[in-house]
């Protein structure tokens, strides 16, 4: 669809239906302008010495240009290294586990003799996905609280020393990874199981007649037919590698300062600085995230289109 022919059609035939459809799309279009496109232009505050008081527009226009000072400030701080390490490090672990564990469990559920039991397990494992991070944080507190928590009570009753969980950063990489897997495994299983149940049964029939073992059926039928979905989920996850789940890294560690080094990702840093009104660095970090995120998502989409054009975004 070239713009030339589009322009020509616009001029020649603007029918009543077009006017009505435009009217129908108008509220949503206004929503997009206000909540998506205005912020895109607001991103220039990363290059400004933005002041918080007063009207937003006059501030954006009148505040002096800062050039790349905000970025210099960000990258010269110690925080920059920490947030890059945490953001990418956790995401890489999450991507790998987010494929290996749900795929393995989906394969196992698909093999259970009792279909109904499989449904029940799957439903139960889907529960954490529907909990908010605030609730998960309360759940975590019930287990990890220093003086009342269940884990410390168990440690003490077994003769051990109670651990001050919210002050000891060495446990948190494992705790965060566990919490992430716990909350998202049900979702992953659903996606992969949908693929498995969609596989034509005659493949297995033929394989069994040829004497294939259960492992061979998995290895040569199920996994190859799941490959496309797995690759797709992988690439989409890689496309979002600069974004992290704010709730996991902010709510679950309860914003504890002793855990700063292992729980601060780019989203947490931006939020904290926004709340403490250090806008310069926050806007620079948000800008870096938006731009790198855009590049990775476009790259991921480009790769998806080469593998399976129907699954690409455009």
């Amino acid at each position, binding site marked *: 669809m070239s713009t030339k022919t589009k322009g020509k059609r616009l001029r020649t035939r603007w029918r009543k239906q077009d006017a009505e*459809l435009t009217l129908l799309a108008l509220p949503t279009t206004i929503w997009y302008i206000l909540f998506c496109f205005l912020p895109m232009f607001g991103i220039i505050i990363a290059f400004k010495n933005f002041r918080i008081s007063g009207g937003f527009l006059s501030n954006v226009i009148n505040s002096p240009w800062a050039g790349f000072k905000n970025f210099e400030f960000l990258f010269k701080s110690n925080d920059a290294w920490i947030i890059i390490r945490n953001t990418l490090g956790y995401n890489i672990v999450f991507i790998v586990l987010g494929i290996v564990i749900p795929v393995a469990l989906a394969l196992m559920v698909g093999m259970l003799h009792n279909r109904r039991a499989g449904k029940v397990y799957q439903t139960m494992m889907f529960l954490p996905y529907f909990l908010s991070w605030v609730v998960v944080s309360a759940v975590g507190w019930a287990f990890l609280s220093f003086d009342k928590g269940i884990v410390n009570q168990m440690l003490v009753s077994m003769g051990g020393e109670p651990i001050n969980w919210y002050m000891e950063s060495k446990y948190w990489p494992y705790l965060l990874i566990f919490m992430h897997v716990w909350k998202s495994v049900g979702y992953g299983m659903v996606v992969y199981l949908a693929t498995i149940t969609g596989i034509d049964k005659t493949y297995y029939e033929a394989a069994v007649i040829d004497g294939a073992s259960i492992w061979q059926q998995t290895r040569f039928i199920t996994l190859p037919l799941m490959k496309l979905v797995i690759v797709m989920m992988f690439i989409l996850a890689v496309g979002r590698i600069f974004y992290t789940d704010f709730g996991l890294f902010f709510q679950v560690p309860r914003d504890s300062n002793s855990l700063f080094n292992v729980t601060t990702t780019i989203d947490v840093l931006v939020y904290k600085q926004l709340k403490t009104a250090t806008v310069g660095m926050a806007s620079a970090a948000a800008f870096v995230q938006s731009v790198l995120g855009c590049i990775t998502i476009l790259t991921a989409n480009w790769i998806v289109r080469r593998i399976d054009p129907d699954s690409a975004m455009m």
Partner: protein
Amino acid sequence: MAARTVYESGLDKFNRPSKGVNIVFNLIFILLALVCVVPMLVVLSISLSSEDSIRQTGYHIIPTAFSGDAYSYIAQQGTMILRALGISVLVTIVGTVLGVLLTASMGYVISRPNYKLKGLLTWIVFIPMIFNGGLVSSYYINANLLGLKDTVWALILPLAVSSFNVIICKTFFKSTIPDGLIESAEIDGAGQLRIFFSIVLPISLPVIATIGLFLCFAYWNDWFQSMLYINNQDLYSLQALLNNLMSNVDALAKNAASMGVSYAVLAATMPKESARMAVAIIIVLPVAFAYPFFQRYFISGLTIGAVKG
């Protein structure tokens, strides 16, 4: 050997491991399912424990001393909690209705093949999927320019539309509504608004239900918008209230104290610890009862999403 397997297992029983392996798999899944469900039961048990037992011996998987104090406190004196429940319900209902209408209308418009501005609007939907202004500029635009700070709209509007949902709708309309149906309605003289509201929406219930459910859970579970834009405690949703109680267990007593009773008395007598977990249970209960029944719609939405990102 192979033929015997077929005979034994029947037609729909291919891809099945031996009995022993099956038992091991079942045990693994029972363990995993418990790991996913028991933590919520622990929260329930804390909310049903007496305040004294919590103060003396901490949290337990099974309460050492049962007590419904937290819930009777909420029913009788928990104005703050009941108001938060009201805000959560209001935001969820208004947000879901508004979100479904905004999403479906846009999805329908960009699914019409002959619409003149289809290209432009498709880009408007598409661009936010790959680029966004980031938290800082979104925050200042919503708080300062649009004046949403400390209004209930700050909880509703920013979450109403997602391009992902619009595209699910568009794909659905394109693949399931026959062009002939729309065309014959047009020939009969129906306007596009009428076609959308009285033909397209009623026959698109599956996708409307899916989007509605996504939105419903998203609004009910949202705490981030409150954290960003709401300082006025009267506008706290349940999630925002729980968030506040997690960092400050005395907040309930302080709020009640401002209404006349002495703070010291309340702080000593109120079931603070259990009331806090009771708020978590009030949040989770409707979700836990609803999702097993609506799972089907979720799954269809998620799987469309996985393939049609």
